[in-house]
């Protein structure tokens, strides 16, 4: 594969910026070896059975942007959740944009991965946390690790509540023909701390861009993490998102993924439990059209007793879109009293739309409550008729029902303005204006 060769040979140039004896750099070198050996995943691998990267890999992507790109704030303002009231870590074509960002070191760290990786004062933290949970044998994660340089670094110290949500936004300016981005984020939520994070990838012009993103998150004892992934990119952009979360006892972590756009999106979301009484929530709404493809691959590894996990993914697919759900619950032998729940509901609106779903349970403990449910179907004709008989036009009735279908997931969104925004986007996606706030 040509692009693979390019990635491997370009690594030499990438290395020039670093001290080769540095421990972080040794991690990079080891990861490159893994990628060199494994290459890009093919459809023959079970985990990639329904998602093919072949079409994406045909292009020759630039690995570094040619020049610094600046964007005017007014062009991108609409992508921000709030104008001022959030911490922001913003990147343009993979390069940090100090002008658009709003970082802090006051009480909590919201800053850059590049700083964390190079400055001595972060050395200990990086040694403890960097690349510790990302699986070593995953080729795309290894590829990201080998090029790990920039991204968001967030540290919430003990008992600190981040009073503002944090937005991580990656823009691609479209000044390159084709761009391959590899951001690397590290988030540590220390004991009893509390944080809300919104992550987004957005291209500003129709041009091929592929983002292979890795995020490692540590949620310590009694901590609380609320993470939102907003995927509403242009049809030329693809995203491979790998998020790995470790939870310690009595912590809560929830991840909401809203996949409304993009050409090909693959979400690898994995939870590892390291203590008891943990609650994990994974929810997602996927609304696709044209030839979009979204793949949700989740894993919740219950390794300790008395933990709970909830998964709820809803998908609505029209035109020629393809949805994949590959959820896995793994319950170890010692993880008694586990309560794991997994649900995946899909609606197919058009003839050519496809859903492939594979909800898996692997259970080695006997005193557990594990269940999964999965459906593929259509909107209920009778309910539709009921609404129409009350004077609601067909299109609006359909939209209402679709909205109701997705509402389970939206209900648990904790940020009101985010909820409003997503509601608006869903309404837009369904092509209706209901004249009232959904």
């Amino acid at each position, binding site marked *: 594969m040509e692009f693979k060769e390019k990635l491997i040979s370009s690594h030499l140039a990438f290395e020039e910026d670093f001290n080769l004896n540095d421990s972080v750099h040794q991690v990079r070198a080891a990861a490159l070896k893994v990628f060199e050996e494994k290459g890009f995943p093919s459809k023959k691998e079970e985990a990639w059975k329904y998602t093919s990267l072949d079409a994406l890999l045909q292009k020759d992507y630039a690995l570094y942007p040619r020049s610094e790109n600046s964007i005017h704030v007014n062009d991108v303002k609409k992508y921000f959740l709030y104008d001022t009231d959030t911490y922001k870590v913003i990147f343009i074509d993979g390069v940090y944009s100090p002008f658009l960002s709003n970082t802090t070191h006051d009480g909590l760290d919201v800053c850059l991965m590049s700083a964390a990786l190079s400055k001595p004062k972060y050395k200990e933290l990086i040694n403890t946390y960097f690349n510790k949970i990302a699986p070593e044998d995953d080729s795309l994660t290894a590829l990201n690790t080998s090029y790990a340089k920039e991204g968001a670094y967030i540290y919430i110290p003990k008992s600190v509540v981040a009073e503002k949500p944090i937005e991580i936004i990656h823009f691609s300016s479209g000044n390159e023909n084709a761009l391959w981005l590899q951001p690397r984020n590290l988030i540590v939520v220390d004991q009893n701390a509390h944080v809300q994070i919104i992550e987004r990838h957005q291209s500003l012009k129709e041009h091929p861009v592929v983002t292979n993103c890795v995020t490692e998150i540590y949620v310590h004892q009694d901590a609380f993490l609320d993470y939102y992934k907003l995927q509403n990119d242009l049809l030329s952009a693809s995203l491979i998102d790998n998020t790995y979360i470790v939870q310690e006892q009595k912590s809560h972590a929830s991840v909401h993924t809203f996949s409304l756009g993009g050409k090909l999106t693959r979400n690898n979301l994995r939870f590892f439990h390291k203590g008891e009484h943990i609650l994990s929530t994974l929810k997602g709404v996927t609304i696709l059209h044209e030839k979009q493809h979204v793949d949700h691959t989740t894993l919740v590894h219950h390794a300790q007793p008395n933990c709970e996990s909830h998964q709820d993914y809803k998908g609505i697919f029209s035109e020629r879109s393809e949805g994949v759900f590959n959820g896995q619950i793994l319950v170890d032998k010692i993880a008694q009293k586990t309560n794991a729940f997994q649900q995946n509901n899909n609606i197919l609106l058009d003839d050519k739309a496809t*859903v492939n*779903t*594979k909800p898996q*349970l692997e259970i*080695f403990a*006997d*005193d557990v409550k594990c269940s*999964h449910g999965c459906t*593929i179907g259509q909107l209920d004709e009778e309910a539709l008729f009921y609404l129409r008989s009350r004077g609601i036009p067909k299109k609006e009735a359909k939209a209402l029902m679709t909205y109701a279908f997705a509402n389970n997931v939206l209900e648990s969104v904790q940020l009101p303005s985010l909820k409003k925004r997503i509601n608006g986007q869903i309404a837009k996606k369904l092509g209706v204006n209901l004249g009232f706030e959904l």
Partner: protein
Amino acid sequence: MAYTEEELKKELETKEYEYGFYTDIESDTFPSGLNKDVVRSISKKKNEPEWMTEWRLKAFETWSAMKEPDWANVQYVKPDLQAISYYSAPKSKPKYDSLDQVDPELLKTFKKLGISIDEQKKLSGVAVDIVMDSVSVATTFKDTLAKKGIIFCSISEAIKEHPELVKKYMGSVVPPSDNYYAGLNSAVFTDGSFCYIPKGVRCPMELSTYFRINQAGTGQFERTLVIADKNSYVSYLEGCTAPSRDENQLHAAVVELIALDDAEIKYSTVQNWFPGDKEGKGGVFNFVTKRGICHDRSKISWTQVETGSAVTWKYPSCILKGDHSVGEFYSIAVTNNYQQADTGTKMIHLGQNTKSTIISKGISAGKSQNSYRGLVQVGSRAKNARNFSQCDSLLMGNDCGAHTFPYIEAKNNSAQIEHEATTSKIGEDQIFYCNQRGIDTEKAIALIVNGFSKEVLNKLPMEFAVEAQKLLEISLEGSVG
């Protein structure tokens, strides 16, 4: 009801085994190993026509290029296929001289199942005088079928007598290139059954390999072909509840069902091969390919009770090719000690208005692993396809595992697919309730397990259902401590 389950049970317990066995006495055994010459010799030995030999050789070539798959959730030492002898005549000398030499454990099981002395002897390999009236029973049996025009014979006989049917259908559902073990089977199969139900005929009795007249016992590489012509019906039973001790470690059977327009095939299996001892040593590897094809308005129903074998790897499937066709799969898989089972089904919806139902119950105890692996696929032209799947697992003890791997692929927007799975253990309160009413724990568990599997047991033909119920109890014996 005049005839209760209790009475039937009694009858089964007291009834003598009517049908006897046929023992073929021949002395030669092929040297172990597999190559083209061996395939040719098997074919020659069976006096097969040229086209069959060719078919086998082609299958052998296809198989040679294949690799043994390892995606299933089972672990075992791969059998050395070169160390097996591919043709051996049945032993003419009995293993034991009297029942006293047989493993008492085995005898105890026989007794519980209500198997007659003669049958016990046969099953455990003791010298036996064949029950004499079997000849007359066999004849009446054959007469009834012949009158209806039903062909029921061994596959070797069918190859000679009905080449047009065999040629047309063999390999049409499970081609030799399908998978590794199907390929191997196609090249070297020596035994099996063939059944053809003519147009518009309803087979008056349950056909069973157990009762088949000519060839006794199950071969290592069995090949079954059942063809139900237009508007016909057949219920076919395979296997038997009695534990069979078989020397062959590897069993790779192929079963093909063809249901032509408006036909219905009901295929029930009870499998109780030697699962290995308590430490998991020995035991049969059961790698079976079973698949049926449904034409317009036809129906195929698979029912299976799997309690034996050290490693089970099988997925009875339905290809719903015809419009309005129906596929059903009911399964109970029980694993105990070190048994491993990776079983499930595939429902391939191709025609319009097709329906499928999957009910799978997995019970794991001891140190066993039990997996359900299923595929529901709806093609882009399969309008109004409907599927309902339910997979429940029951765990007993904390050394066992239950796994569910459902694959659901829908390419049509009119498809309605539901899948649900649960995993749980037997509630302590349930057992307590039974104890309180004077039912001991072991019996209570049997009761609860029976209730858990009722949905599937109900689908079995009557005479099988009672035995299967008892079998479940026995399989789980001692699993609670």
